[in-house]
């Protein structure tokens, strides 16, 4: 059987948006039947997966387990023999898609933002080099493609329905990876998902002591501070201020990005902001692709002048 198999992702009892993004994309490709594999009790919610004609119920624990979910995905591929398998380009997806393709011996394309079917093959565009290059690959089916979040509209795949459910049964794994617990993020002093205006700083800020300038600007604009991941890893900013794939998803009315390059992992967390202003000395920085307004200048020059003006 040809068609597309979507590997559903869920967290905290709900399907992730990327699941619906992939379902919408799968239907739009028109390369045969769309099926979806849902893990654990999520298969009971097949009514939400109406974009698929079949839901494969994988008898796994509800909590993600790399070994178990990869084995279940493999068994789902073996029963449906799809031409194309879509997996989320997420933390969980990394541990499903790679072993899946490697053990099945089929090609894998990562960081994909778009797919076009072409004479039995798929032309996939990947966002590589931190979003600085769009790379087109041609891959024959069957293939596994990892889809970046946010490249498609989740609403296109959010269709109620009553797909047929087929039971995959329990999966057998060596049990070398055991889930222990899920840890909720520290709330931190400010919930940046609720902020109206955010001043977000990236590695372009240079050093810990230079953060002051941005803080001063944030004060004057009545904004909260946010940041990209490297600043958290360096211990300069608390994790609760991190925006992006492994941080918070924010939607302020204004997001001012200072010295942030615009890697796909960052953009994922801020692209839905109502207005984005980016200041970056590199005129080719990918952040300018999602920004509404851009300034290709030194952030310190701009901040200092702006602070003076606002005062």
């Amino acid at each position, binding site marked *: 059987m040809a068609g597309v198999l979507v590997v559903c992702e869920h967290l905290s009892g709900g399907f992730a948006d990327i699941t619906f993004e992939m379902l919408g994309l799968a239907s739009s490709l028109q390369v045969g039947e769309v099926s979806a594999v849902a893990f654990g009790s999520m298969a009971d919610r097949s009514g939400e997966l109406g974009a698929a004609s079949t839901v494969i119920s994988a008898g796994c624990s509800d909590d993600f387990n*790399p070994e178990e979910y990869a084995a279940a995905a493999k068994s789902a591929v073996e029963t449906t023999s799809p031409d194309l398998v879509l997996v989320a380009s997420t933390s969980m997806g990394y541990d499903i898609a*790679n072993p899946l393709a490697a053990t099945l011996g*089929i090609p894998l394309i990562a960081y994909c933002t778009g797919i076009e079917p072409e004479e039995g093959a798929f032309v996939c565009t990947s966002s590589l080099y931190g979003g600085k290059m769009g790379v087109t*690959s041609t891959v024959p089916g069957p293939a596994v493609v990892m889809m970046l979040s946010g490249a498609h509209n989740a609403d296109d795949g959010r269709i109620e329905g009553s797909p047929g459910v087929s039971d995959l049964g329990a999966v057998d794994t060596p049990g070398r990876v055991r889930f222990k617990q899920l840890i909720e993020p520290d709330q931190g002093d400010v919930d940046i998902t609720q902020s109206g205006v955010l001043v977000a700083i990236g590695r372009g800020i240079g050093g810990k002591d230079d953060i002051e300038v941005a803080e001063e600007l944030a004060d004057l604009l009545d904004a909260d501070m946010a940041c990209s991941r490297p600043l958290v890893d360096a*211990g300069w900013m608390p994790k609760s201020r991190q925006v992006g794939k492994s941080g*918070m998803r924010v939607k302020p009315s204004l997001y001012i990005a200072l010295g942030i390059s615009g890697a796909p992992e960052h953009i994922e967390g801020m692209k839905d902001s109502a207005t984005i202003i980016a200041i970056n000395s590199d005129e080719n920085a990918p952040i300018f692709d999602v920004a509404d307004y*851009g300034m290709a200048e030194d952030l310190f020059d701009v901040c200092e002048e702006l602070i003076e003006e606002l005062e």
Partner: protein
Amino acid sequence: MRFAVLLKWVPDLVEDLEVDDEGTGVDTEDLKFKLNEFDDHALEQALLLAGEGDEVVALTLEGDGAEKMLCTAIAKGASRGIRLTGGSSLDTAGLADSFSQALGADTYDLILTGVQSVDDRDGQLGPVLAARMGLPCVSVVSEVGLEGSTAMVAKEYSGGMVAEFEVDLPAVLGIQAASEAPRYAPVSRVRQVQQTVDLEEFAVSGTGASSGSSITGMAQPESGGGAKMLTGLDELVEVLNGLGVT
């Protein structure tokens, strides 16, 4: 315990990237390269975990940067450096095949590598390597603790959520961030290592592994695609006024 850390030399994104003449690759002439930043975190995590009598072995494929990466790793505290010759660094499939041969020549308790690199178009090295070697793997790891023959690891999800797993060793980890910021090695110390330490070599026997796909095009996204570019403070202030935030 013996830790392996896999290192990769990648373009520095601070540079302007250009498409090469064939239109299917990045023009590497004049391009600055550096150690994959996530590999630097993997190395740091291994160094933090290693205790007395443990061994941290850094491995990379021959070529530009190999000596620098390995000597820097040793300067930071790694015990040995191995350069793989004759391997394929073209794609993740080739890298995984090359590394699996070198790692198979010895026993390792924990294999650490960066969660991803800027050019791993055909998948992430850690889990691909693990599948090839038949080892368990957890990616996107930001904390690691060792307890006997198992590792406790924290895997990051979205929204700041973290899952804790217990993993039987030997295992492969894709490291997102070490529990401390990567240490710095003074240039003088790296130079000293370059002069005094013999790097080891491992000859990879021809890898036939392939990504199974071909690059048919490469292009820079249109610069400033969506943004209206502002010149001068006045224009910025006007925008801010328009938004009512000033």
